[in-house]
């Protein structure tokens, strides 16, 4: 039986492949697709990037058509030493900005399936808060979680 893979998971896999294809990020990481992120802070000494299928939203355009947004969360997490400095926090925020910039580049379509020509492009994103203050206050942990909405095209 052929493996069933929902579109949103294929999209998440394509995002992971896209992020891991770049070798010039300001901080090194290997992105992973996860359905459930449960990360101990002990393991976050280096930058971790998680790509998580978040949800879908649809809007009827007319009697025959819907637009459908697929939302993908990108969790960028790192624990810093002692009291983090603005520079250390800034480095991680800069990395997240670069990730978002790359994925929202309007000239860039993300190939989901080269055979069928299925691709996706970002229609919007939300990144609020920039980092989660409780994590920083409690654990010296910088957690940034932008959520990007995508639409498929053929």
């Amino acid at each position, binding site marked *: 039986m052929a493996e069933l893979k929902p579109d949103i998971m294929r999209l998440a896999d394509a995002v992971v492949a896209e992020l891991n294809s770049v070798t010039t990020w300001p901080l090194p990481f290997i992105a992973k697709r996860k359905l459930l992120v449960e990360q101990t802070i002990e393991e976050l000494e280096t930058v971790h990037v998680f790509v998580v299928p978040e949800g879908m939203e649809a809007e009827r355009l007319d009697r025959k058509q819907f637009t459908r947004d697929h939302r993908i*969360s990108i969790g960028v997490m790192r624990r810093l030493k002692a009291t983090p400095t603005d520079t250390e926090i800034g480095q991680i925020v800069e990395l997240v900005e670069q990730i978002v910039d790359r994925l929202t580049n309007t000239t860039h379509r993300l190939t989901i399936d080269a055979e069928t020509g299925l691709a996706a492009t970002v229609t919007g994103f939300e990144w609020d808060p920039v980092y989660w203050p409780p994590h920083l206050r409690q654990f010296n942990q910088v957690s940034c979680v932008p959520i990007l909405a995508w639409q498929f095209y053929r």
Partner: protein
Amino acid sequence: MGDLIGDGASWLAGVQKSHVSRLVDYVTPGGTIEDVAATIGAIGQPVEQAGAMNLLAQTREFIIDAADLTIDDAVIVPQRGHQIKDTDDEGTVHIYQVCAPGDSGDVWRWGDGSFIRRIIHTTRIGTE
């Protein structure tokens, strides 16, 4: 009449220190205080969320006499980033970082009304 409550608290702190404590190292940027008697307080496993991401922590309170935390006669007040190194029975050194749980922002609080012991909040960040 003397300070009955203060005397009682002091006695209790002494009993706790001599019978229910273990030796840990307290590490600050200015130096390490070795073999400090610490009683283990509350242990927790809070889950902090950031959107779809769950952050798992192991928190632990260390109860330490304020008078034992000194370097060159200077009193050390616990601060974020200080570490407590606790060696278990197998010889593994567990590292706990002083942190501020919840919304209070405080990394420690007094453990009694007589200001004898500090309850220091930490989270486990790994082993040596």
